[in-house]
């Protein structure tokens, strides 16, 4: 530990920390642009300059390592003046096009101008250096060169985090711009993280551009269902539609990052949902649907229930209990035919289901293919697009009565005799257990559309109709029992406080 004095207060901090991080842990925020805790330091923006006793010039807090006895001042007239001057330089050529800029509302320039600038501009708009406003860097990222402050966070992300080194600065001084090599694109599968870490409106997401003002959006903590990594994410939503997904810091899982594939895979939650239950005679109310399902369950020995590693632990636990309590004799199996991917050595993992490990630990067998080929005449498929993933199973399912509990109009839903709408992970409180056995909770972000119910509510209703009790008053009680029963699941992941991203 090193003892340092920040603004007159003596504090003990970890050795080897950069001053900016040490100060943050002591509750002193030092403004910064180029510094990002997930990237190597560069010290180019000069915004974090502070006074260090014994050194005549101001020092950048992001490149200064704490030393025992260091006396630091972050709020002197000299420091405040420096920040204001740095702001003036950074805004020298800024187009001030906030009204049409996606970053407005979460922009480092807006925030710090109000906090540390507030100077009048000495130049007119016509004197500013003009640059390109819309450069397609790659399939997902668009650059506005005029807004860029050349902090090189995006450059360092590609170079040091992904290792693809696609982005660089070309030219010097007023002509300097972020660019790729001529003819090449920003094509790495993690490219959209550059948009998150861009402290200004220079890098924008092609999909999110001009879609929604950030101040309208509410955020919910969630877990990406794209693969068994379980990256921690924010769901940003507005008017009950998901607008974008962003990575949420978890040093044990995904750090500050997520892949583009996971980030862009949310339109299925907004669109093409099953809103009402459907049977051979048309649309049904939820109670009608439940009775129609019940009519198929008269002989439990003929029933196969298919669970999915895309379901939450809570849904799977409830489903298992439902079979044990209300439908003894029925077979329960789980699994997925979703095509696997590659382990790319960074975040993306082969299994494209978020909860395969959770399903195993809950004790649902994965003998899906054998069971499907078995004699069961009634198949209840929960959140599993068997036919979408394996069209050849059509002949296997042909002679069976199929009930699809599904959020979307999947191939399985189209081939089913009965379709019952259920929620997606974005409309549920729940948890996934990732490949490493970490059970990660998430909160519902939006309201379930139409008649969509959680699997818990569905099986609770079905048990009630069968005159059986699952034994839980609420989902909270379910979660409590589940985490008590399954080893290691009682450990709650500590809620993180988001670091300043701007």
């Amino acid at each position, binding site marked *: 530990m090193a003892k340092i004095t920040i603004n007159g207060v003596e504090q003990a901090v970890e050795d080897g920390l950069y001053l900016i991080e040490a100060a943050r842990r002591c509750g002193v925020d030092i403004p910064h642009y180029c510094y990002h805790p997930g990237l190597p330091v560069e010290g180019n923006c000069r915004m974090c300059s502070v006074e260090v006793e014994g050194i005549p010039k101001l020092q950048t807090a992001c490149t200064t390592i704490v030393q025992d006895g260091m006396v630091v001042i972050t709020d002197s007239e000299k420091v405040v003046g420096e920040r204001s001057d740095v702001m003036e330089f950074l805004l020298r050529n800024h187009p001030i096009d906030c009204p049409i800029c996606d970053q407005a509302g979460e922009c480092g320039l807006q925030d710090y101008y109000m906090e540390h600038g507030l100077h009048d501009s000495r130049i007119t708009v016509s004197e500013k250096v003009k640059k390109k406003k819309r450069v397609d860097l790659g399939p997902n990222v668009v650059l506005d060169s005029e807004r860029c402050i050349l902090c090189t966070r995006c450059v360092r992300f590609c170079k040091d985090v992904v290792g*693809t*080194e*696609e*982005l*660089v*600065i*070309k*030219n*010097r001084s007023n002509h300097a711009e972020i*660019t*790729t*090599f*001529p*003819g*090449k694109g920003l094509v790495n599968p993690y490219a959209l993280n550059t948009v998150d870490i861009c402290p200004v409106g220079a890098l924008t997401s092609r999909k999110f551009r001009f879609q929604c003002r950030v101040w309208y959006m509410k955020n919910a903590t969630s877990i990406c269902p794209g693969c068994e990594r379980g990256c921690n994410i924010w769901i940003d939503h507005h008017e009950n539609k998901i607008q974008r997904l962003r990575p949420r810091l978890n040093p044990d899982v995904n750090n500050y990052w997520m892949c583009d594939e996971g980030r862009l895979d949310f339109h299925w939650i907004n669109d093409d949902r099953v809103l009402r239950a459907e049977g051979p005679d048309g649309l049904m109310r939820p109670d009608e649907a439940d009775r129609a399902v019940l009519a198929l369950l008269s002989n439990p020995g003929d029933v196969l229930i298919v669970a999915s590693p895309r379901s939450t632990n809570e849904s799977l636990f409830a489903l298992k209990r439902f079979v044990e309590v209300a439908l003894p004799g029925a077979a329960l199996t789980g699994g997925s035919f979703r095509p696997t991917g590659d382990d790319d050595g960074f975040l993306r993992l082969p299994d494209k289901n978020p909860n395969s490990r959770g399903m195993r630990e809950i004790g649902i067998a994965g003998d899906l293919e054998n069971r499907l080929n078995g004699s069961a005449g009634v198949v209840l498929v929960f959140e599993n697009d068997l036919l979408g993933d394996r069209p050849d199973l059509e002949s296997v399912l042909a002679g069976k009565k199929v009930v699809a509990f599904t959020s979307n109009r999947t191939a399985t839903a189209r081939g089913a005799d009965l379709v019952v709408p259920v929620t997606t992970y974005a409309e549920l409180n729940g948890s996934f257990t990732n490949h490493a056995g970490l059970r990660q909770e998430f909160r519902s972000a939006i309201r379930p559309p139409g008649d969509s119910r959680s699997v818990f509510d569905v099986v609770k209703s079905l048990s009630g109709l069968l005159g059986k009790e699952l034994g839980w008053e609420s989902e909270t009680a379910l979660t409590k029992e589940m985490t008590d029963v399954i080893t290691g699941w009682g450990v709650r992941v500590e809620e993180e406080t988001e670091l300043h991203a701007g």
Partner: protein
Amino acid sequence: MATTEKTEVKFSEARKQEIERIRGRYETPRGLIMPLLWMIQDDYGWISYDAMELIAGECETSPAWVYSIATFYTMFELEKPIRYHLQVCNTLSCGLCGSESILAHLEDRLGIQAGESTEDGRFRLTAVECLASCGTGPMMQMNDEYYESLTTEKVDAMLEEWNCD
């Protein structure tokens, strides 16, 4: 009219030996970027994107990184030098003798306007002020040489020659 010529960029055997000789001076392969940029510029007169990719391979880095460094220093020539710079006199004497039609003919044949270069970088056409050869108008200067008493036929013959080498 514009023909595309493609020169393969490579390091000569002598250059390769030189590279191996100096490699040890640098802590990382990246350190070689600057000397290699100079070698290419010395050997070819300019540094093409192909050359940057060649250097990137040699320095175990991305072409983008080489591009960043090459564009940082204005001393590096990143455009192919113009081979034939045609400066057509536009001033009174030549004008009276028909320099306008000579310029128009050149624009037509080269497919560019005065002030522009052909895409392959071989020709640049400029309308200039008096070159002090008023007795032999219309005239133009190609690089350092004068071409005088021009007619469209003469111009065609010159273009034929320049375009074939």
